[in-house]
């Protein structure tokens, strides 16, 4: 209700300001040749800005301190002897009762006299502060309006002022990307450093046992946080995924860009790109309930012992997921190879496949390597498929046929249902996250560098 009143007030002020600015500036222009620098809407927008911004500042200040102010006033209303007897929970309960009484909703049970009087006083206080807030907002808004209006002259460069404000807003929005990166780096680093105050970084990066103990069992014993089992698990999955995705993706790109008729390409390409749009949780479920059991049975048929949840299952399905990344990127890169190279090869009598293998692919190789690296970085950072289908068994393994665990799986395990960042059990997630961030960042930078460098060769 209150916020509705304030919103209506602000809107009314805004409309008034805009109208005032418009009218005042319109009156300036005379038929006998006084030229106004800016068009009326800019004058209007400027006045509106002068009205809105101070009012918003007042509201923001109230938003920051208002609740605390009301609360401390309500606490001061409780008689001292009662206040002394109350603990924190009792105090909150009493305050709740007073608030409920003040709102007119009433409370269940008998009302103590001090509660009633406090509620009455609080109701007055709330009314007064609310009126004061409205008065302040209106006063500041109207003051801004009048000030801005008084400054309107034919020579006032209202448009430039408004445009400066707009540009400042645009710059601020662009800075959000930087803020995000800074936020990521700072939060990962600070929490990871706290983790390393518990655990020696050498033990973390070169440890071969992953066994994070629980805080309830450990007295000084923090468990073991060796990264290597998780790293090998991650690499197993990424390797299998690229073994699946690279040949299929590359051959798809070659066929679609070199052989396929236009109509086929127009149908097949978007169909394959559907794979990139499917949520990863769907792949995870598919891997868990269909691919895993299928692989186990297939392995059983040829005498191989394959677990249903294993690096193989997760890698295979993740490979399917990254096919479109490889195929789309390779497609672009193959199309960028100049036609003259291809024509030259045909002129020498090479067949199409010979041209592709001996001319196109070598020319496009750096770009394809870049695409490959991008896909690998995606495979390393992927979470839901491995959470569901990799088996979560953080042990160093020499074979992909058994359950493994990855960095992302461990982040999820260490941080779900627990954001009490005091022990290494949850802080380790940030050290893992930092490792993951750095790994994928390096891969991405190298990949982008290679792709970009290659593109420049033909320009």
């Amino acid at each position: 209700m209150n916020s509705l009143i304030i919103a209506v007030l602000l809107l009314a002020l805004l409309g008034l300001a805009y109208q005032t600015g418009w009218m005042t500036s319109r009156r300036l222009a005379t038929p006998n040749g006084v030229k106004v620098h800016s068009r009326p809407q800019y004058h209007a927008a400027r006045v509106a800005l002068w009205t809105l911004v101070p009012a918003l500042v007042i509201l923001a200040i109230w938003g920051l301190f208002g609740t605390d102010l009301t609360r401390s006033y309500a606490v001061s209303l409780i008689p001292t002897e009662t206040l002394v007897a109350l603990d924190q929970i009792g105090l909150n309960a009493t305050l709740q009762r007073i608030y409920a009484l003040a709102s007119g909703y009433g409370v269940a049970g008998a009302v103590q006299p001090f509660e009633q009087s406090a509620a009455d006083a609080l109701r007055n206080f709330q009314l007064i502060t609310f009126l004061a807030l409205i008065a302040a907002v209106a006063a500041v808004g109207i003051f801004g309006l009048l000030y801005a209006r008084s400054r309107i002259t034919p020579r006032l460069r209202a448009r430039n002022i408004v445009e400066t404000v707009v540009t400042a807003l645009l710059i601020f929005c662009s800075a959000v990307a930087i803020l995000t990166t800074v936020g990521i780096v700072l939060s990962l680093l600070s929490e990871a450093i706290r983790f390393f105050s518990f655990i020696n970084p050498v033990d973390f990066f070169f440890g071969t046992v992953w066994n994070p103990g629980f805080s309830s069992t450990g007295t000084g014993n923090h468990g073991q946080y060796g990264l290597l089992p998780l790293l090998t698990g991650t690499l197993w999955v990424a390797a299998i995924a690229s073994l699946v995705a690279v040949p299929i993706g590359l051959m798809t790109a070659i066929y679609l860009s070199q052989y396929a008729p236009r109509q086929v390409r127009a149908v097949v390409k978007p169909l394959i790109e559907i794979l990139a749009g499917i949520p990863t949780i769907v792949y995870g479920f598919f891997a868990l309930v269909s691919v895993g059991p299928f692989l186990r049975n297939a392995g059983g048929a040829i005498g191989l012992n394959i677990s249903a949840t294993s690096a193989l299952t997760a890698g295979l399905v993740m490979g399917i997921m990254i096919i479109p990344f490889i195929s789309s990127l390779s497609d672009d890169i193959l199309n960028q190879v100049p036609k003259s190279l291809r024509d030259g090869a045909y002129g020498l009598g090479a067949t199409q496949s010979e041209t592709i293998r001996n001319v196109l692919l070598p020319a496009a190789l750096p770009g394809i390597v870049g695409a490959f690296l991008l896909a690998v970085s995606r495979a390393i950072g992927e979470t839901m498929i491995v959470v569901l289908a990799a088996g979560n068994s953080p042990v160093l393994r020499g074979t992909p046929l058994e359950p493994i665990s990855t960095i992302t799986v461990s982040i999820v395990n260490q941080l779900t249902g627990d954001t009490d960042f005091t022990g290494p059990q949850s802080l380790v997630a940030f050290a893992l996250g930092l490792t993951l961030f750095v790994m994928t960042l390096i891969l991405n930078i190298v990949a982008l560098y290679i792709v970009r460098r290659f593109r420049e060769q033909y320009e």
Partner: protein
Amino acid sequence: MSELQSSGRAAAAKRTQTIRDGLRKRHRSEQLFRALGILAICAALGFVGLLFADVLRKGVPAFWQANLHLDVTFDPELIGADPRPVRAEGQSIADYNAAILAWQRSIAMLNWNNVVEASMRSVTPADLEIDSRQILSIPETNARHVIREAFVANPDLMGQTVRFDLLASANTDNWVKGNIDRTLGDAQQQLSAPARQLIDALEENGTITQDFAWGIFTNVDSRSAPASAGLAGAFMGSLYMMLVVIVLAVPIGVASAIYLEEFAPKSRFTDLIEVNINNLAAVPSIVFGLLGAAVFINFFHLPRSAPLVGGLVLTLMTLPTIIIATRAALQGVSPALRQAALGLGASRTQMVFHHVLPVTFPSILTATIIGVAQALGETAPLLLIGMSAFVASIPGSVVDQATALPVQIFLWQGNENRNFFEARTSAAILVLLGLMILLNAVAIFLRTRLERRA
């Protein structure tokens, strides 16, 4: 001479033969290469088909569910409830609510299972011996709540007989659908022998039928009554998150794309922003979850499990997509348009906002929808900010506890009642995929529709 000639001819013939052989070999390898390409495409398309076929095959049956159509008698002897309190003159709302709550509690204390059992008994063949625990395993455990709530809403029902459509329990549903091997011995069956017999009898006389499971769309998640678990709560959670993403990511993303493309001088600062955005686009999503957990929850103390935090995290994830797409759209606007606007004396801001931006509107819209669709399917970062908590209510605002569609899928796939929930999970996946396909179809429709005019 003739010998030389013939030997020359032989050599030529041999050379032709070699060339022919070589050609044949080269053509064969050409064909092989081509076949490999076709094979790769078939494999990729096969995966798409397999995935969809698998999810459809598993999920579609879950949209039909066994229901019990029972005549329930509100027998005063069985129920014996007090009359509903009336608000007295001068009674505060809180006191009245307390009285109503006390009355509802007293109603809840009554044994509604007796009512359910009595109405089940009325349709049980007389010759079947079945105890009450067995008979109560057939309807879902929430049957008594449904009946009680109907009574709380309308106490006049006392003494009347009303027809109820009740959900059958997950085990009954599995039995009716034949998901359970009927030849298994009693020890391995979830339902006792008389219960199974009764189900078959009820199915025969039409008390149990398979109806479309609207509950999947209208109910919230449930642990105690699996057959009533639905997606409504998760759907609202996803919706709130999408709202946050649209309200924050679109203006910020478009604004920063405009700045970078139209205003930014080539300076270190703008270079930094550019590199940053490209890197952000490639940061694994789970890292954004870590950011959300550390910054929004641990530092700013925003509520855990709230769509607000999820939306903020997804906003930061979606921003690079929108910025990159908007920049591409802005680059696609012909320089002639800009020069014409500038030539007529427009300022740069006017040129951008009055002339360039309207032209790119369709592309920005499609990019936004695609970005939002991506965010809709994201799971991993939400797990880290507590959106995987069990929530049995529809969230009313962006700061209420909520979960999201993909997270609901994650929660259901881990449910111990595998037989039942594997199908439910596939059904939820179908709903999610349907939403994503819908969003992408809208994007494609808008692109073709609007771009032609521009």
